[in-house]
C-alpha cells in the first residue's frame, strides 16, 4: 500500500529560471524505509520540504494517506540536517517542543520526553543546553524531538550529513536499532521513513528501497530493492555479500550521470 505518492511534481526557483525537478513520480510504501539518493544540489531537500508542506510545488501534487499535502501534519515529523535545536532550550525542552505544540497533556509530554530521551541515549543530559553537546548528541536530541510525536511518517533530511564518520556510523546503528525495536515500528510510530542522503553506504544500510535521482532537473534514475535481511547493523550490512554489488550498482548510476 502506498503511503506517500508524488505525482508529476514540478518545482522551479528564481521565477522559473531554475528547474529543480520536473514531472517527478515517486511512491513510498507503508512500513518501509525509503532512501532518496542523489548528487548534491539535485533537489532532494526541496522534495522533502514539499512532502511536509514547508515548500509548495509549481506543478503536480504530493499525496499522503489520500490527502494532498498543503501544510505540516501532526502525524508526520521531520529531522533536519542542521539539527534545528533551539539554543535557548534545554535538551528536555527541545525534545518536548513538538509534543507541546501538538497540545498534549503535561503528564503525557513528560512521559514522552522521558521515554524518547532514553531511547536516543541522552539520559543524564536533559538539563544541558545544545551548545554543551557534541554534534552527534545534538542530532540525538533532534531525533528524540521527532520521535516524541510518535509520528506515522518520519522525514529525515540528511540527518547525519554534517557529522564525522565515526559518529555517523554510531547514529546509523542507533536509528536501525530504534526503528527495529518492536513497539516502535508498526506498533504506532513511525512506520514509514523517508531518508535523504548522498551517501551510498548509508542508503544501503538504512533503506528497504533506494531511489536514485539524477542531477538537476531531478528524475528517478532507478529504484533499487535492498535485499539484505533485518534486523541489521551497519557492520552486518557491510559484511553482507550483496552490499558490494548494491554499492557498485548505485555508484554506476550516480556516475554515469555525472560524466554525461
Amino acid at each position, binding site marked *: 500500500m502506498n503511503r506517500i505518492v508524488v505525482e508529476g511534481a514540478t518545482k522551479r526557483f528564481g521565477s522559473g529560471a531554475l528547474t529543480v525537478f520536473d514531472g517527478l513520480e515517486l511512491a513510498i510504501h507503508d512500513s518501509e524505509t525509503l532512501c532518496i539518493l542523489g548528487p548534491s544540489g539535485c533537489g532532494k531537500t526541496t522534495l522533502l520540504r514539499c512532502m511536509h508542506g*514547508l515548500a509548495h510545488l509549481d506543478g503536480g501534487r504530493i499525496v499522503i494517506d489520500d490527502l494532498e499535502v498543503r*501544510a505540516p*501534519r501532526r502525524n508526520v515529523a521531520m529531522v*533536519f540536517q542542521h539539527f*534545528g535545536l*533551539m539554543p535557548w532550550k534545554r535538551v528536555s525542552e527541545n525534545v518536548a*517542543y513538538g509534543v507541546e505544540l*501538538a497540545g498534549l497533556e503535561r503528564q503525557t509530554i513528560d512521559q514522552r520526553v522521558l521515554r524518547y530521551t532514553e531511547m536516543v541515549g541522552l539520559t543524564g543530559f536533559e538539563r544541558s543546553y545544545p551548545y554543551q553537546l557534541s554534534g552527534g548528541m545534538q542530532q540525538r536530541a533532534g531525533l528524540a524531538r521527532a520521535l516524541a*510525536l510518535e509520528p506515522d511518517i518520519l522525514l529525515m533530511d540528511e540527518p547525519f550529513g554534517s557529522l564525522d564518520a565515526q559518529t555517523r556510523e554510531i547514529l546509523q546503528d542507533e536509528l536501525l536499532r530504534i526503528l527495529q525495536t518492536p513497539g516502535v515500528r508498526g506498533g504506532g510510530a513511525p512506520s514509514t521513513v523517508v531518508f535523504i542522503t548522498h551517501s551510498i553506504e548509508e542508503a544501503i544500510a538504512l533503506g528497504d528501497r533506494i531511489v536514485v535521482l539524477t542531477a538537476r532537473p531531478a528524475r528517478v534514475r532507478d529504484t533499487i530493492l535492498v535485499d539484505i535481511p533485518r534486523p541489521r547493523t551497519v557492520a552486518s550490512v557491510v559484511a553482507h555479500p550483496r552490499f558490494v554489488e548494491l554499492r557498485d550498482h548505485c555508484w554506476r548510476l550516480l556516475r554515469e550521470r555525472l560524466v554525461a
Partner: protein
Amino acid sequence: MTVPRVGEVNARARPIAPARRWWRARPSDAMIRVASVLVVLGIWELFGPLLNPIILRPPSQIVRAFADLIANGELGVAMVQSMRVFGAGLAIALAAGITLGIVSGRSRVIYNVLDPWISALYSVPSVALVPLIAVAFQYSGDAPRVATVVLFAIFPILINTQQGVRNVDPGLLEVARAFNTSERRLWGDVIVPAAMPFILAGIRLAIGRALIGMIIAEFLVGLAGLGYLIIVYQNTFRIDKMFVPVIVVAAFGIALMGLVQFVESRVAPWTRREQ
C-alpha cells in the same frame, strides 16, 4: 635517555619550589589596577595643588566636598531630580524602541515607513536637536529633559531589536513551522529568545547614551539635577564640589552596566559558548 656526565648538575637534584623573593612574585591583574589608581591619586594629592591650586584640588578635599553635599541635602535633591528624568526617559525609550524594533523587524512595510526617519535622526548628532526640544517643550518641567533622554537612548535599542528580529535563524523558523507552531508560540519560542542578546546589548548602549542625554539636557535645558550642579560649581570655581556629581554619574553608569551584564549572563547563557 641521556646519562648526565660527571660534573653536570642533575635537574632533579634542584629544590622543587625555589623560594621566591617577594619582588619576583607576579602581581595579579587586580593588584596592578589598584596600585595604578592609588599612585595617581597620591601624586595628585601631593603635587596637584602645587601646580594649580584652583583646578587640581586634592582628592581628600573632594571627599570632604562629598560629605558636605550629602550633609546639606544638595546632592540628594539633585540625584532625585536626575534619576526621575533618567528613569522616565529610559523607560519610554525602551518601551517604544523595543516595540517599534519588533514590529519593524517583522513587517517589511513598517520597516520601510520608519527606516528613513530613523536613518535621518540617527545620523544627526543628537546634541544638535536638544535646543529644538527645549523650545518645543517651552523649557518647562521635566518634559524637555525626559524627551532629550528618549532622543539619545531610543536609537540603539530600536535598531538592535530590529536587527535581532530580522536575523532570526531561518532554519529555526522552518523547524517551528515543521512542528506546526502558532504565530503566538513562534514569538515566545523563537523570535524573542533569538533577539534577546541583541535587545540586551541595545539596552546596554541605551543606558550609556541616556546618561549622556540626561547630563546634556541638564546643561542646556533645565535648572535641575546633577548636570546643573556641575555647571553651578564650575561657574563658582568650586572644582572640588564639581567633581562630586561627576563621580556620582560615573558610579551610577558603571553599576547599571554591571546589572545589565549580569542579566545578560542569566537570560542568554547560550551566547557565552566561547567561555
